[in-house]
């Protein structure tokens, strides 16, 4: 499988990365080189093979349903590019 420029434009949009028109072709070539490389996976017989979900067998532990952290808005927002009091500021999203 290989991708065309329109597909690169679409996945860039999905990934929320602005890619100028002039750079689409470069990415297309690189992505296709990698897709060409992974094509060999098609020759492996994977019938009846379970996909890996956990590389080491482990049961997820349960913990008490209790508040263990929080009440530190100043720390949480300390690195925000824009904030007001203890809120993150973003461009208007609801009209």
């Amino acid at each position, binding site marked *: *499988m290989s*991708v065309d420029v329109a*597909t*690169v434009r679409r*996945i*860039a*949009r*999905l*990934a*929320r*990365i*602005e*890619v100028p028109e002039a750079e689409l072709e470069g*990415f297309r070539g*690189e*992505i296709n*080189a*990698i*897709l060409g*490389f*992974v*094509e*060999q*996976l*098609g020759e*492996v017989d*994977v019938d009846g*093979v*379970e*996909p*890996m*979900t*956990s*590389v*080491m067998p*482990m049961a*997820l*532990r349960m*913990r008490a349903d209790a508040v263990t952290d929080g009440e*530190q808005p100043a*720390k*949480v*927002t*300390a*690195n*925000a*590019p*824009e904030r007001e009091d203890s809120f*993150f500021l*973003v*461009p*208007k*999203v609801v009209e």
Partner: protein
Amino acid sequence: MTDLTALTLDEARQGLAKGDFTALELTEAHLAAMEAAAALNAYVLDTPDRARAMARESDARRKRGEAGRLEGIPLGVKDLFATEGTRTTACSRILGDFVPPYESTVTRQLWQQGAVMLGKLNNDEFAMGSSNETSAFGPVVNPFLPPNWDAAKARAALAADRKGLLVPGGSSGGSAAAVAANLCLGATATDTGGSIRQPAAFTGTVGIKPTYGRCSRWGIVAFASSLDQAGPIAKTVRDAAALLTAMAGHDPKDSTSVDLPVPDFEAALGRSVAGKVIGIPREYRVEGMPAEIEALWRKGAEMLKAAGARIVDVSLPHTKYALPAYYIVAPAEASSNLARYDGVRYGLRVKGRDIVEMYEKTRAAGFGREVKRRILIGTYVLSAGYYDAYYLRAQKIRTLIKRDFETVYAEGVDAILTPATPSAAFGIAEKAEADPVEMYLNDIFTVTVNMAGLPGLALPGGTDPSGLPLGLQLIGRPFDEETLFSLAGVIEDQAGRVRAPRWWA
């Protein structure tokens, strides 16, 4: 006084215990060495004030008789580990001047044992790379000289554009270069596809990626969560064992960290390896393998045999599919993990007309090309209509790769010996024009280990004809890092250390 930076971690520990020097003196020696080696670009941030404060506290603790296992030992920290109050960037512009209000579990455990932080070490952006050239802070210089170069020529290149000098490997290139150049006594690192073992091999240092789950990933910038593991890079096998003993352990804050007791890994050194069965996987004999790598591998097997181990040929039939499967699984997980960098809660923000344009412009300006490419691939392989063909198939192949190892271990093999890399270190900018797959081939021997979650240790086994270090890799059973340390100790005793010349100052 002898050069304190030339000591191993173990020697420094003994010197401190005997009172030959103080933690502050040891730290000052390293801070001075770091300053003189700034052009190597191993560190992206020196933290001399914090280092001196920690060293003074360490000396005070020792006086009170409260010395930890790493009391007074100056370490470097890969810039992927969150360090409270100290800038952490993953060497990406998108994290900008992020100052974590928390400390990663692994580094917290090191400080609890008395270690001292010298600064933050360079790495490939978000640990995506095999040469440290994708870092937003620029490439790191390997302290080993290129073939047929003298110190004067290297100094001239260092003062110019660094071209022609060697890469230290990646992604933990700063960690490996700093250890090899005596700019710390050991360093933290992370390994997703070979990022500890490949740079260790390129710099004549010892690195171990422990079993998945051995070290907590809490507070480490995530790349591919099912593959990422922390581990040390050190000057010797014993030093690596001492560091891993402190770094490992169960952490309730990481649900994938394993609740198993942590052995004293140093105790495994010197243990007899007589009767251990060492597998030599025939699939690692790849086409076009340089003769010196073949010779190194054979020599490694002979060293283990001389110590009483039994060498057997084994087969890991799905080896060749590990790298392509990795280049689906890792970008897929990365595209998901890196979705958090949106310019809202931390890091860079580039304004846009609306919130979507803000996201797009922020991520366009903040991520480097390699990172963007991997996010795009990850987004593609996870997108509707392609998930089964790519991601699901790759995860099934991962099951087969792990099964290969399980079969071999069930037949009685204790550990597997392979070369760590397909070549010695290459030049900065040498692979800039190559297609990305060529760079990815660097990880051909290491990536299987991440795909199967197993422990892997790289150590110098010798040098190539021009004196560059070449690394061997030992792969172990799950949670049996001890056997790897025992075997590595045997190889180190016979192969010796490979030391970098000091030419930059």
